[in-house]
Structure formats: structure tokens, C-alpha cells
């Protein structure tokens, strides 16, 4: 499937000597030097990426990194100096003003940092704003707006004015306004930055829930790497208007591209970013039902382990064989590993769960934490060492 959004070589120069600044930037001259020589600001330089349908793509950078400019280039609220933007294969820069307005109205919605609601309109009228511009009938406007407000949990405040709502609620209206437009692409410019931490967490949860239901294509701007890691399928790290790194959260944490990224990742709560899948190791030892007990016991001794996962014919975990129990079985003359020798002394998790949800289970049993798929088959294990390793890991570049 083609990407919903494709940006190529996006560049923006603010200031009079645009062409000269572009030429210098093309020669690899840095932002400060371009500013000094031309007096123009190189806000964004040569940024390219694609966003797939249903993906939540995060653009992450500090203030001044050009992220707010970049997101506005994507719907041409700011006219790019160079580069192309395609939405559903349509070249935005080739569109007439009228066609661009139609595209913004129907295909690309935006959520703003300070909500940007119309203070003189009710919550419902704000939610219906795109539809009103579209010229849709009043009844359908109301129906769509009410659906969007219900989706964000604000329907009962539909007749209030924005200034009667708290900040978190106002941003829900901002979100409802974007959802009611039913556009494919959502551009979110630091939507939760102006909110209190607890409310921000609620809003992130809301966005995650909406995304599992609605599968929008989202470009999400933030300066908070924890937020980026929590929400983003992929993250683009922006610095001084240029791409520093593009990858998934765990990729960025485990292999930061430079010191700038490494500095960021050192503050990240890894337990929320790294998943069981990221920490997965091949089990050093497994046993099969019916295997000779003596052989299993010897293998355990060789591996200096106290227990082992015993798998059934289908690869599912039948239980755990413990060395003390195996020894007793042998003494009592039972030589084959049967179900009666096994105990349920183990814990499992799914590969997509974050570390914070299973860290308390690691190291509790004789066997390492098992990672199983939806059918209960053992994919691998998370030994205690792997967890400690991941939590302690100082990014390689940083230590160097």
C-alpha cells in the first residue's frame, strides 16, 4: 500500500535571501552560518519521510528545532522553500488555493498546542467547524459533531463555551473538531504540551484508545521523548531543522545516532519503551514431554539451572520441570518426563508488553519469564540478566 503522506527534501527558509540561503544549505553550511551570511533563518532543511496508513509518526525535537514549522509545511500553512509533500499521492504544492482548502478541509486536520478554539462558539459548533466550512446540512453537522464529542467523552458539555472548560477538556474539543472532519491525516502540533502531567497522561491514553479504534494516520509533534516513545510507532528526531535519526522507539534507545539523541534517551523511562519482544532471548534449554528424566536432569546440571520449560507437541508450555522434583522422581523409579512431574512455577507475558508491566515477574521462578504468542507457544524468555542489562545500558556513543 502506498504511504498516505510522503515528504521529500522539505526545506524552509524564513527571510529575504531565500535562494542564497538554500544554496548555502545545499552545500552543507550549518544553520548558524547561513543566518550569519544571509540574515535568513534556515528553519527546516532537507527533511524527508513517509507515513503509512494507520501509523502514528512522531516528530520530536526541542524548541527551535523546526518541528512546528515542519508540521505546518505538511499542510502548507507555511509555504515550503523547497521539497515536495504528497498526500494520498497528490502533490500539495501543485494544488490551487481552492483545491488546497478542500484538501485541508477533507483530508488533513490539525490539532493545536493552545487548542485554538473559537471562543464565541459553543463546544458543538467548534466540533462541527470543518463541516460548516464544507457546507454540510445542519442536521448532519450536529450528528457528526455529537459523534466526535461522544468519542472524546465530552458530549454532555456540547452546549458550553470553550472558556467554561478546563485545558484538558478544551483539547478534547480540539481533537473532536479534527475527528468530526473525518480526515485521513491528523497533524497534532504539541497537542498535550500545555496540559498538566496527569491530564497529559489521560490524553495520551485517550489518543492511544482512539488510534486502536479509528486507525488514523497521525503526525504528532512533541518535545517530550517519553511521550514520543509512548505514542510513536516511529520517531523522527529533529535538530536545528535537520533529521538526526528516524526509527522506532527501541531502535533509538538502543542505538542513538549521536550525542544529541543519546542525551535525550538517557532521560527516558526505559521500562515504558522496551517491550518483552525487545528483551527476548532464545531459551538456553527446553525439554519435551516424554523425554528421559535423567537426561533432563543432566542437562540442567550442565547449564547450572534449577528448572526448565517443558513443551508439548504443539510447542506450548506444558509446565516446568524442577531439578529437585526430577531427582525425587528418579529415586522413586519414574524415568520418563510425564505431566505428573511438572509444576506450574512460571510466569509468561506477550511480546508487545512494556517492561514496566512484567518487571516484577522476572526472577521469581526457577525458570526465566516466558514470552508466549497468542496461542501460548513459547517464543523465548526474558532472563533477569537481560532486564538488568537493558535498564543499566548507557548508550554506546555516550560512554565513548
Amino acid at each position: 500500500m502506498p504511504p498516505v503522506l510522503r515528504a521529500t527534501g522539505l526545506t524552509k527558509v524564513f527571510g529575504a535571501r531565500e535562494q542564497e540561503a538554500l544554496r548555502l544549505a545545499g552545500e552543507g553550511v550549518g544553520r548558524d552560518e547561513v543566518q550569519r551570511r544571509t540574515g535568513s533563518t534556515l528553519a527546516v532543511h532537507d527533511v524527508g519521510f513517509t507515513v503509512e496508513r494507520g501509523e502514528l509518526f512522531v516528530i520530536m525535537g526541542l524548541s527551535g528545532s523546526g518541528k512546528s514549522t515542519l508540521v505546518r509545511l505538511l499542510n502548507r500553512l507555511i509555504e515550503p522553500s523547497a521539497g515536495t509533500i504528497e498526500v494520498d499521492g497528490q502533490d500539495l504544492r501543485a494544488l490551487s488555493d481552492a483545491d488546497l482548502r478542500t484538501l485541508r478541509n477533507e483530508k488533513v486536520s490539525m490539532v493545536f498546542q493552545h487548542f485554538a478554539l473559537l471562543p464565541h462558539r459553543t463546544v458543538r459548533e467548534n466540533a462541527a467547524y470543518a463541516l460548516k466550512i464544507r457546507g454540510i446540512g445542519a442536521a448532519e453537522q450536529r450528528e457528526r459533531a455529537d459523534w466526535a464529542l461522544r468519542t472524546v467523552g465530552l458530549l454532555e458539555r456540547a452546549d458550553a463555551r470553550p472558556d467554561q472548560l478546563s485545558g484538558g477538556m478544551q483539547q478534547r474539543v480540539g481533537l473532536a473538531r479534527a475527528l468530526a472532519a473525518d480526515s485521513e491525516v491528523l497533524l497534532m502540533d504539541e497537542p498535550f504540551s500545555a496540559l498538566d502531567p496527569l491530564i497529559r497522561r489521560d490524553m495520551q491514553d485517550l489518543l492511544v484508545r482512539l488510534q486502536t479504534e479509528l486507525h488514523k494516520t497521525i503526525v504528532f509533534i512533541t518535545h517530550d521523548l517519553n511521550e514520543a516513545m509512548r505514542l510513536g510507532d516511529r520517531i523522527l528526531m529533529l535538530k536545528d531543522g535537520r533529521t538526526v535519526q528516524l526509527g522506532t522507539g527501541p531502535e533509538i534507545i538502543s542505538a542513538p545516532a549521536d550525542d544529541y539523541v543519546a542525551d535525550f534517551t538517557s532521560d527516558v523511562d526505559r521500562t515504558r519503551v522496551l517491550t518483552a519482544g525487545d528483551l527476548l532471548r532464545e531459551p538456553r534449554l527446553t525439554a519435551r514431554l516424554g523425554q528421559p528424566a535423567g537426561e533432563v536432569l543432566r542437562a540442567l546440571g550442565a547449564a547450572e539451572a534449577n528448572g526448565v520449560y517443558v513443551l508439548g507437541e504443539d510447542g506450548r508450555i506444558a509446565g516446568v520441570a524442577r531439578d529437585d522434583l526430577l531427582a525425587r522422581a528418579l529415586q522413586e523409579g519414574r524415568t520418563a518426563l510425564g505431566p505428573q512431574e511438572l509444576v506450574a512455577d512460571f510466569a509468561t507475558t506477550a511480546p508487545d508488553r512494556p517492561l514496566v508491566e512484567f518487571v516484577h515477574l522476572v526472577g521469581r521462578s526457577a525458570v526465566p519469564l516466558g514470552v508466549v504468542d497468542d496461542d501460548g507457544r513459547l517464543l523465548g524468555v526474558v532472563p533477569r540478566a537481560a532486564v538488568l542489562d537493558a535498564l543499566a545500558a548507557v548508550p554506546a556513543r555516550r560512554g565513548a
Partner: protein
Amino acid sequence: MPDIPLGRWVADLIDWLLATVPWLFDAISAVMQVLVDGLTGVLATAPPVVWIVVFTLIALVVRGWGLALYTVLAFLLVVSLELWVETMQTLALVLVAAVIATAIGVPIGILAARNRAVSVVVRPVLDSMQTTPVFVYLIPAVFFFGVGVVPGVVATILFAIPPGVRLTELGIRQVDREVVEAAHAFGARPGQILREVQLPLALPSIMAGINQVIMLALSMVVTAGLLGAAGLGAVVVRAVTQLDVASGFEGGLAVVLLAIFLDRLTAAFGQTTALSRLVRGRARRTLPGRTASDAGEPARAGAPEPV
């Protein structure tokens, strides 16, 4: 220093205009005369009690009991001073001048807010309009329109335009940029943004501008009286020439009473009024979980949210 005959040039320009487009000044003159005469007729011929009731009701709806009470007392005082007709003549002159000044000033303000070039050109023109001594306006006004009410109205209009332009431009420029950006982001047309976002949000500032326009117009009535416009200005001018302290005081007092009425009334436009408070208060009481005391409270990011 060479002698630059700047004044001569301006005088020549005025002569040339008079010779070239006399019909234009005749037309303007006729329209003004009809407007002022018509409005004066409506205001001055009906019995005072009719208009006092009307003014009081307007004051009550727009502002509340306080202004309504003031309106009754102030206009009764005007009647007892036997200046009712003159006051209504002045009111007509002020209203015509203010409406025309607003009709010229607000669109220029909108243009200036949307177009930097217009803004750059308009600003020094406004500065010179506001600093030119009032009487200087009168000379060309008399040349173009003779004596009577029309040159007074025209001079008043010119004098009263600047705040309308300035506060309209300021109001539109001060509208939250992100809100305007949001309108663009959802595909609104420039005209829609102006009508549905910029003008409504700039309204308090624009209304403050209109309030200023009216006040400046009122301050010109005495000057207009010099040119022969009927009304309170004529009363004051006559008192000055005859050194009649008593009628001078009474005429001046009537101007002040009218000024306070118009100022309080127009200052209330664009703000929360008794009527809209009533309507909004009722709407709020029907909402669950909130009380009317939350009215107008600013957004609190940390407030607990029912989900």
C-alpha cells in the same frame, strides 16, 4: 532657503477640484443635508416623552438599570432647560457623522490589518489627521460645502475617522494567531475567516473604536456650530459671542449629558450585557455539575475532568 509655496499649491488644488468636479460636492452636500434633516425631523418632532422612553429602554437592555435611570434624569433635565430640540439636532448630526465615519473607518481598518502596505500608508495619514488643528478642517469644508450643517458634518466625519481605523486594525491584529491559523487549517476561505473569526473576536476593540468615533464627533459639535449648524453648538457659539454665561453653561451641560449617555451606551456594546448575562446564566444552569458561579472563569488546565 527657497520659498516653497505649499499653502498656495493646496489652495490651487482646492480651486481645481471645485472647478473640475463641482457635481461631486453638490451630491455629497445634498445627501448629507437629507440625512441630517431627516433624522433631525424624526428626533425633534415627536414629543420628548416618546424618545425618552425609547432611549431609556435601549439603555436598560444594553447596559442595565443604572444607565436607564441616568437616561431618564438626564433627558428630563434637558427638557426642563428647554434645549430638547437643540439636543436632538446635535444627536442627529453626531449620529450621521459617526455612522459615516464608521462606514469609512472600519473597512479601512480591515484593509490595513490584512495588508501591510495599506497599513504603512494609512498610519501617517491618520497621525496627521489627528494632530491637525480642528479649525484647519473647517476652511476647505466651507469652500466645498458653503455654510450650514453640511460642512460641519463633513469636518466632523474627517475628524472622527482615525480611531475607527486604528482600533479596527489593532483588534484584528490582536486576534489569537493560532485561532486564525486553525481556520486556515480547516480550509476556511479568507472571507469566512474575516466574517466568522476575525471580526467577531475583534468586536470589543472595534466597538471601542466606534465609541471613540462618537465621542470625537460629539466634541466637534461646537465647532460645527461655528459654521452655522443648528443644535447645541449654535447655542454655545451664541452664548460665547454674547458673553451669556447662563445659556453657555446650560448648552455646555446638555452636551455633557448627551456625551455621557452616548459613551456609556456604546462602551457597553461588545461587552457582556444584562440581557446576555441573563440568557447565558440560564443556559449554564441547565448543565449538570457546574454552578453559575463558574461564569467566565478562565481555563484551568488542572481542573478535574469528568470523563
